[in-house]
Each structure stands twice: as structure tokens, then as C-alpha cells.
């Protein structure tokens, strides 16, 4: 394809001492000058990523309520799961024994849910499910799945929040302390859940 002469410029050799002088005309799209709105239209239009598989676990009742508010949104390949309240999970609980369910109440299997998962997000408000967080995170670590935590604030700073943050810190690659539940869909959208 012929190049419009206007699209060419001569680099200033004087400004490139010792840096491999450019001594020939250069196309606009062959240099840093191409960072224009006009050149942006030549960017190759295609989907540059495959669908991600996300698993979101609410670790307590209040977190589950926040999560249920967004489960009906049009997510790509996200599953929303709840750890049963009062489920007596301990850090030694086997991953296959952790009691979790889908939003419709149907029981789910952690092993099945984590198979092929790209990211796991733990939601918590009170730190009561530290053991469940550990079991899920440990399984993520084993399978090399990134685990993120969102601590949802409920009211002013409290020991409760410190507990939930501490409970998730050990297990997550990134931990967010969010003041409002709106952050859940914002983050999931940003991560293409």
C-alpha cells in the first residue's frame, strides 16, 4: 500500500546521540507518534481474551445478601455460591466436605466449582467464616487459582471488620475493604466475570 508523504517524518538524529540514529523516513504508524485518535482506528478489532470462569463465595449471611443482589445480572461465566451458616467448618475440613450452595439453594461441590476456575472472590462482612475462607483459599493455592477478598464494611470501624480483614489477609492475593456493596458488581464487571 502506498504511503502518503504527509504520514512520514524524518526523525531528528541530533536528539538521538548514541541511540541508533534513524536516518530514513519513517511511517507514522512505525513510531511513537502513532498514538493519535486517527491511528487508533487502525487497531485490530477482535476479542483479545477468552471467557473467564469466576467463582464468588459469600462467607456469611450478610455477604450473601449483598451477593444475591447481583446474581441475576448478565455475567459471563460466574457462579455465585454461599457457605452454609453455622456449618462448623474447621481449617481441617476437606475441600470436598465444605457445605456450599447455589443461589437457588441447591448444594454445590467446591471441587467441581473450582475446576477450571480463573479467579475466586471471597465476600465477607464479619469474619465468622475464617475456617471456610482458609479451606477455599488453600484449595485455590493448590490449583494455582488467584483468590481475591472483599471485606464489606458494615458501619464504623470495628473489631469485627479487623477480624474479617485478618481472616482473609492470609489467603488472598488482593484484599479490598469496601464501604458499600456496589463495589461487588463494579469489581466483577471490571474483571469480566
Amino acid at each position, binding site marked *: 500500500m502506498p504511503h502518503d508523504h504527509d504520514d512520514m517524518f524524518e526523525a*531528528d538524529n541530533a536528539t538521538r546521540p548514541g541511540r541508533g540514529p534513524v536516518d530514513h523516513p519513517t511511517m507514522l504508524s512505525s513510531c511513537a507518534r502513532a498514538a493519535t485518535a486517527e491511528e487508533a482506528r487502525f487497531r485490530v478489532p477482535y476479542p483479545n481474551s477468552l471467557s473467564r470462569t469466576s467463582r464468588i463465595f459469600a462467607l456469611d449471611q450478610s455477604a450473601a445478601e449483598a451477593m444475591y443482589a447481583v446474581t441475576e445480572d448478565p455475567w459471563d461465566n460466574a457462579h455465585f455460591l454461599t457457605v452454609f451458616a453455622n456449618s462448623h467448618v474447621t481449617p481441617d475440613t476437606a475441600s470436598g466436605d465444605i457445605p456450599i450452595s447455589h443461589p437457588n439453594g441447591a448444594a454445590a461441590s467446591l471441587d467441581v466449582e473450582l475446576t477450571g476456575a480463573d479467579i475466586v472472590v471471597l465476600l465477607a462482612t464479619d469474619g465468622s467464616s475464617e475456617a471456610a475462607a482458609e479451606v477455599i483459599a488453600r484449595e485455590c493455592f493448590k490449583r494455582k487459582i488467584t483468590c481475591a477478598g472483599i471485606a464489606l464494611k458494615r458501619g464504623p470501624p470495628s473489631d469485627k471488620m479487623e477480624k474479617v480483614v485478618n481472616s482473609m489477609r492470609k489467603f488472598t492475593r488482593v484484599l479490598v475493604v469496601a464501604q458499600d456493596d456496589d463495589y461487588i458488581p463494579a469489581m466483577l464487571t471490571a474483571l469480566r466475570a
Partner: protein
Amino acid sequence: MLRKEINELLTETDAGKPMGDMFRQYWIPALLASELPEDDCPPTRVKLLGERLIAFRDSKGRYGLMDEFCAHRGVSLWFGRNEEEGLRCPYHGWKYDYTGQCIEVPSEPEESGFCEKIKLKGYPLIKVGDILWTHMGDKENRPPEPIWEFATVPAEQTYSSKRWQECNWLQAMEGGIDSSHVSFLHSGGLKTDPLFRGAKGNKYNENDKKPVFEVVESDGGLHIGARRNAEDGHYYWRVTPWIMPSFTMVPPRGDHPMHGHFWIPIDDHNCWAWSFDYHPTRALSPEERKAMQDGYGVHNQYEAPGSFRPRQNKDNDYLMDREAQKRGDSYSGIWGIAMQDASLQESMGPIVDRTKENLVSTDNGIIMARHRLRKAVVALRDKGVQPPGRTPEHQLVRSAARVLPPEQPFGDVMKEDLTAHPGVKQTSV
């Protein structure tokens, strides 16, 4: 990923645009005070938030910032005569005071009062530190004057610079809260830059290239903590404050001066990257000040004296040095921390298409910042709620670095470290 309409909401800052209205709720840096060095000095053009303005300092030392163009025939007042308490258009002699009020129309009888009917749009321009600040919003919503620590310490303790960055403000600002790029893009600078090298904390950076992040909402914005492994199971924390809409500070290293940035829109495709260095308790040494003037640390070199365009720019491929890249002197081959950031951010295009990005969990600082900006913009637009970051209590912040036991959340333990206390040394490693 960010939806197209939200990307537009956050990146468009002309008057009447929601994000533009939000920026107009703050005092923002407009010029270096050194750009108007004396009374009746030449005026200077400045474009902010999509508005072409002229700044001048009148015979009594009052600063004016107003519409660049004469109300008569549209001549640029940059050609004007700055004399006798006003800026006079050289075409037909119309004269304006520092508020933009026309005070003389030579062709009209003085008694007619005609000039009183002519007023250029004007904004307040005040000097705090070595920066001139403006508030481009409604007078009734004017916030208290800015009290950022870097601007209020004695002059010998602080240094500011600005550079023209050829991209939208948001992608530049997002670089300031994206702590995970430091271990890669800036890795060479930690060893060689005179304003960074030698700190004990640098070792932790070098030894642990996979930091773990904690993002905590604060009243004024965010605290973004990056955690790396230290000795005896302890953690080395580097905490970056972000105050809305576009103030960030880099966590300190040793006793080096602390530094940070403002990103202020020029228009939707350009922004001012303001960079500052200061030490809370001592004067900058001559060597430190010279290093800043020479473009080290967060500062840069310029294309020409009086120009705020960096010497390394898109017209010369940022003086990319592939040999230095190969040797490992510079991870990207670009010299200097500031231009390492700017070159990559400008390469994204004037406004990056965020519908195509693939963020990962360690990008949560960016995700949360966008979330908070969006909420604040919508609250201002729909309910008139003033955004965070305008008040002194939100501005009295610092970055900090510290080694902590594993069970201690930085948000609690480092609360005082992250607050600016005049005369108190920074918390640093």
C-alpha cells in the same frame, strides 16, 4: 474492563461534562508561580479543563486567570500589554483587570460606562507554595484553600515541576495508583536514581516481585497498600494515598524526600502531570534539588527552556535506548521514572479504550478508584453532593512505608503515619 459510557463519563472534562463539573469543585494546580515571576511580567497562556485561558500578574502583584480572548474582536490577550493594573489588548486598547472585568474601552466615552458591561470569564488564582491554584467552579461552592503538605512546608523543603503529557488525565492518574508496575518498569531506577537509591526498603522490592495488595477506602479516596515479605515473617508495607480526584503520593524510601503527583486535564487528550518532592522536616540538599532539576526521580528534562514538553517525547520515540534495555539499566529502555510512565501511558492513545482491557485482581486499586470517581460524579450531577477531597482533613495525608508483624492491618497501625503532621518526619524504610 469499563463500559464505554462510563469511560466517557470519567474521561471527558470540558465544561458541562459531569467529570468536568467535578474537577471544577476543587482548587487545582494551574501554573508554577515561577511562570509569573514579577509584577507586570508577560502574561502566559494556560489551557485547563478544555478552556483556553490567560494568566497574568498585575502591577500590585494580584494574579488573574481569565478567558484568553478579548471580548471585542477575539484577539488573544497573550499579545497584550500588562501595565498599570490591567492587561490591555494591543489591537484597540481594551483593558481588563485581574478578575476579567473590562476597565477601559478607549473608543467609547468614559462616562458611557460601556466597559462595565464587558467582563471576561475569570477565575481566582492564588499562590500556595510554589504553585498558583485556581478554582473553576461556582463561587458559592468554593472549597477552603488547599493545604497539601508539599505546598505548605517552607520553600527550602519543597520542589515542584510540571510536564505536558499527551494523553487523557485518567490513564495518567491510574499509573500513579498502579503499584504493581514498579517492580518491572521502574526496577532499574531503584538502583541508580539518586532520589531513590540506597534505601533499605529497596531490597524488599527487589526480593519480592509479587506484592500482595490491600485496597482500603478512606474518607478522601483510597489507601493502597502493597505488601512484600520482610524478615522473620514480617511484612514490608508501602502505602499509597489517592485523594479524589487526582492526587497521589509515592511511598517514601529511606530519608529521601517524599514525592507525588497531581494529574490535571488540559483537554480530553492532554493533561498536566504535576510532580512534587518535599521533606517534612529538613531543607532539600543542593544535590537533591539539582537532581530534581536535572529530571531525576519523578521529574523530567524539557525539550527547550520555557517549554513544559519533555525532552523525551513521541517525536523522538522517547529516546528509546535498546542497548540500555538489554543491559538491564532500564527495564523499558526509556530514561527516567517520569518518562518511563509517560511513554507507555501515551502509547495507549489519547483516551485508552477500556472496553478492551483485561484487568486482573491486582488492579483493584484502579477498579476502586474508578468506582469512587463514578459514584462521586453521579452524586454531584444528580444530587449536587460535593465530592470528597476538597477539605483540609482529606488533604492532610502522606504516603508511608513500614515493616509490620503479619497480623497487623496497615489501616489501623499506620493511621498516624498516613496523616501529615507538620514538623514530624515521614515513616519510611
